[in-house]
């Protein structure tokens, strides 16, 4: 297992999940990452996760097409990468 304070490896792991389109794993790891390294107590990663599952619900119930779902999942992927970029530790 990656050491919890190895920020570089943890980022790489999440990026790998994004690149390989394993978005569910990326979202979960992003929640852990955000909780461990973010100094503020907000819900940015939870919001990403909530949106991700909303997309799955809408796709499953036919409210959006799989093409539309893909575009929105790409946005989720981009938001995950933004979270990784925005975290600053000092």
């Amino acid at each position, binding site marked *: *297992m990656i050491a*919890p*304070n*190895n*920020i*570089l490896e943890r980022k790489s792991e999440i*990026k790998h999940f*994004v*690149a*390989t*389109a394993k*978005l*569910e794993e990326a*979202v*979960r*790891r992003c*929640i*852990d990452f955000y*909780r*461990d*390294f973010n100094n503020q107590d907000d*819900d940015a990663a*939870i919001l990403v*996760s*909530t949106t991700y*599952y909303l997309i*799955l*619900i809408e796709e*499953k119930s036919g409210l959006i097409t799989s093409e539309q779902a*893909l575009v929105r*999942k*790409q946005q989720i*992927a*981009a938001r995950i*990468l933004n979270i990784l*970029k925005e975290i*600053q*530790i*000092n």
Partner: protein
Amino acid sequence: MSINLQNRANSIKGVIWENPMRGAELLSDFAERYGADTDVGDEILLIQFELNASSDQDPAHQKKLVQKLVELTDQVAERYDQEKVAARLQLEQEMIEAAKKRKLENGLVLAAEGIEKKYRSSRFHLFAEKLELRLGEITGLVGENATGKTTLLRILAGDLALSKGQVRFPLLDPQNKLDWGDIKMKIAFVPQELPAWEGPLVEALRFEASRHGILGEANRRTVDYIIQRLGLALHTEKAWAELSGGYKLRFALAKALVSKPQLLILDEPLAFLDIKTQMVVLMDIQALAKSLRDPISVLISSQHLHEVESVADQMLFMRDGHLENLGPTEDIGQDRRYNLFEVGTPLSFKKFEKILQDLEYSRAWDNGVDYYVATPLSVDADQILQLLLAKGIEIRHFRDISTSVKTKFYENFL
């Protein structure tokens, strides 16, 4: 731009045209080393995502993605700026160093000494000489059936009284008042038989959090967090009976974790899960236990030895009510006198045993499913495999269990 950098970019572009996935990976590494900023790296990752996410992609769109990768390759090479790259790497290094200072807390959550449990109505006698559980650590408890594992877990969770000995909770109860009402609020116990839930699952989680004093906005946030973290969002409106075994366990875990316990005790959580779900659950437990913000001490009993070993920091072994503390998982078998191998083959045991006669002294036995081979330390897995393959033996599976807790189950044969 140096000629070397341009050459490297050209060779990556060649790979991109041939194999976009592989090319994107090479480009990703290239951008990591030579990219002036991180935006290019993110763009590459998003293209990789798109290539992987859609299996039936329109060829024209795929060509566009490939073209974009080629453009990004040129962009990295053309915009290379040694000073900018050095500054980016310097910032990255500073962040790594700052993160390293955040240590995983490992305070002592539970310390048990000389604990015993006897029942008047039976001859069963549980004894554990010493046991320590720390924050951020996973402790695996294994042993044969009916050896006292559940009894031990229930004692540590405060559900059963001790006959003798002492259990302290230095972090949960610093003054050692042993007020079980207070202590149990910080311990979560998930039994093997999961009780059914009434009503909407999300409401049950909210109630559980409020029972632990988490109210108002904090209640909403805590429940939201645990639902999202355990991937339960698609199932919150379902009834208990509609859930699969895997999701029942995940909801039970959610209920246990929503109170933010410092000690999580799980009795055979993997018992009815398929292998994929077992690993997902274990990975989640590991990530949650080793949270820098809210670490948890986890004690988990299981018959799934290899799976538990793969995440446990220390292992316990129970035999006939007696607890043996095996210490750190990585140390198991370090002082062994034999190597031990597990072999699955359709060959009859008699023939299998005969083949082993060619080896330096070894001993084999059949447990009804697999064959086991104990050898001196001078014989390693390669030699056994080479011997079996040289004889043309069909091997269905082979495992070196010399440093596994599994060896404890076969001590009588050694």
